[in-house]
């Protein structure tokens, strides 16, 4: 290793990329997208006043109309007895958005429903309509049994079960949690790490191919050792990635802060959080010594959705998450970047690379799919193994981490990844050294194997 030349290579790889317009654009666009993604739901929630749909109902069954109660989304008007055909032709004149035609009860004690509208009525509307008509028919059928005191019975059996989730900490502390949030964070992490490894690993390959196809390699290989060149590239591009992350974190923070000031959505979160969160924490506190949780207290004080989200978010180990993200990204990137460098050394242009690249990309894609499973079922055996096997572990482990992973498993996974990286780096360096100087032939995996075994 020659530090002087390796530093020159790192500096070139880094500066040429950081100065690129695309780097600058990406640096600013991603945080904006991210901030918009974070704020948009809140803004939408505050601002949605949907236009009410006016629904004309021609009820030929005589049982459905009472169940069609106008609500925020739709206003049902009874047009029973009117001629549907003449209604159809004058929908606009009457200010009607949707015409619903309900058939008379048939022999199976059911009805047929047809809707007519100029514009599609929308999934929400048809779902609501279907559920209402179903209820009407079910009600009609159950009443046909002539059970006495039916209304009371129906009222008594009506249930509205809510599932509340708690996570048990090491110390027996229970915290309110929301699986949905874990799922989203798990998904985002898995996707990000997959994308970044593919993007930055791909950059290393592109850089190797560029040097080979432009014959720059012939000029510089006498002054730089192949291995210095390869690791210079990998390190330089890793620094680009880290710079990008750092800027993204800072910029997203700034934007969220600014967004907070402008839209005040943070106040909402704050308003929801301190009291209720505190209460929930208290409820959660008795934990082990109380033996059982005061269930009545929990049911009595309905924590609203927002505060559950806030508590869940607050309980996610962000520090560990970020630390793990960096460690797994770096190791995963190093592993794939060395692999891609070896592949890049065997081809003379990007077009030829696909064929060789595919086998190396497959584990990455498999990891991505396992992370989808991990998101829904983080405790499955497949996911566990996926988070240990080095080629998939960066992605799968990351998507497991929001759910909590024992430290020893993380350490084992990191150790395995590190050892594999060292082995792959050694092999890649050998292949790279031979490959970059072989011109005018279309190399295959067999050639790579041959170069690997060369002295």
């Amino acid at each position, binding site marked *: 290793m020659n530090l002087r030349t390796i530093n*020159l290579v790192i500096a070139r790889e880094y500066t*040429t990329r950081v100065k690129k317009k695309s780097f600058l654009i990406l640096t600013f666009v991603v945080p904006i997208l991210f901030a918009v993604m974070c704020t948009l739901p809140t803004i939408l929630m505050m601002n949605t006043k949907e236009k009410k749909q006016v629904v004309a109902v021609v009820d030929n069954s005589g049982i459905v109309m009472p169940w069609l109660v106008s609500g925020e989304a739709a206003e049902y008007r009874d047009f029973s007895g009117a001629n549907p055909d003449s209604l159809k032709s004058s929908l606009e004149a009457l200010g009607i958005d949707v015409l619903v035609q309900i058939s008379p009860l048939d022999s199976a004690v059911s009805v047929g429903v047809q809707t007519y509208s100029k514009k599609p009525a929308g999934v929400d509307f048809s779902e609501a309509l279907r559920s209402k008509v179903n209820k009407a028919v079910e009600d009609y059928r159950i009443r046909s049994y002539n059970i006495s005191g039916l209304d009371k019975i129906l009222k008594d059996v009506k249930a509205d079960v809510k599932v509340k989730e708690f996570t048990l900490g090491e110390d027996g502390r229970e915290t309110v949690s929301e699986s949905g949030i874990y799922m989203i964070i798990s998904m985002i992490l898995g996707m990000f790490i997959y994308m970044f490894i593919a993007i930055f690993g791909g950059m290393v390959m592109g850089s190797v191919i*560029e040097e080979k196809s*432009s*014959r720059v390699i012939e*000029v510089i*290989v*006498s002054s*730089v050792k192949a291995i210095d060149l390869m690791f210079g590239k990998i390190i330089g591009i890793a620094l680009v990635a880290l710079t990008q992350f750092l800027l993204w974190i800072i910029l997203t923070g700034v934007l969220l802060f600014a967004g907070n000031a402008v839209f005040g959505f943070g106040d909402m979160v704050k308003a929801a959080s301190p009291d209720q969160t505190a209460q929930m924490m208290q409820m959660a506190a008795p934990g082990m010594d109380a033996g059982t949780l005061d269930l009545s207290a929990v049911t009595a004080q309905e924590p609203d959705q927002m505060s559950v989200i806030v508590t869940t978010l607050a309980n996610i180990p962000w520090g560990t998450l970020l630390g793990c993200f960096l460690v797994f990204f770096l190791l995963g990137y190093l592993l794939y970047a060395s692999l891609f460098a070896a592949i890049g050394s065997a081809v003379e242009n990007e077009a030829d690379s696909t064929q060789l690249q595919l086998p190396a990309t497959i584990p990455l894609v498999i990891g991505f799919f396992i992370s989808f499973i991990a998101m829904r079922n983080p405790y499955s055996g497949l996911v566990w193994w996926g988070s240990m096997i080095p080629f998939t572990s960066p992605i799968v482990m990351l998507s497991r981490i929001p759910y909590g992973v024992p430290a020893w498993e993380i350490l084992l996974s990191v150790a395995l990844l590190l050892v594999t990286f060292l082995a792959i780096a050694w092999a890649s360096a050998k292949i790279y050294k031979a490959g970059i100087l072989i011109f005018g032939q279309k190399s295959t995996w067999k050639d790579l194997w041959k170069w690997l075994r060369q002295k």
Partner: protein
Amino acid sequence: MAIIECREVCKNFGEKVALDHVSVSIPEGRIFGLLGPNGAGKTTLIRIINRITIPTGGEVIFKGRPITQKDVEKIGYMPEERGLYRKMKVGEQALYLAQLKGMSRSDALRELKDWFIRFGIQDWWNKKVEELSKGMAQKLQFITTVVHRPSLMILDEPFSGFDPVNAELIRQEILRLKAEGATIILSTHNMESVEELCDDIALINKSKLVITGELADIRRRYGNDNIELIYTDADGRHTEVLPRETDGRATLQSYIDKGVQINAYRELMPRMNDIFIKLVTGEDRI
């Protein structure tokens, strides 16, 4: 003394023989022309000297001992298919390559400025390489090859892509580098440049060495030592080729007696172009 000596160098690519026991000796401080038709094995030989390609057999001797990576580090090598980063700016790229060859940043900057001014390309410094024309990129490539003042330079087809003015500029620079003591290996198809620049040559054809030695010797060997006499009389200018057995003094005297004006009386050297064609195809035009 020979700076580079190739001894019985062989190279096979699978079944194909690219170089077949080629031995050449490249004297220090001179310009050595490496000639041969396309695909003869010139570039392979250059790559072997540069240690880019490992020979199948034979060895390369540098100043009396087997060549090492250290010796190669300082060689200025300009490959035929140009090696420049297309997306990089001209100045940054030149600085990077010069620093890789061991120059300090400040030295490289100073020397490069000099070269850029001498080549009249100062205002390219911030252009991207992909914006340059072929000839322009060639100039840049030449500068990056020689800026660190290597004692040995290998230039593969340095004149291709140049207009006559710029080709002449490069020829003058090559002669200047030689005057400063550098050894230059020149691979080219441009036989005029060979005649003008080279002290020694080697001709490779179909992976075999056909001939090597001092250029003047070779030209004389393939010529028939005819003598060319150019004179002007009342009818105009005449050129006459005289057989070598001619008694120069008597012949000249007889023309002088006729009262014509003698413009030239010289040994007729065969053109390198004709020697090349003869050695490669066997077709005699000399």
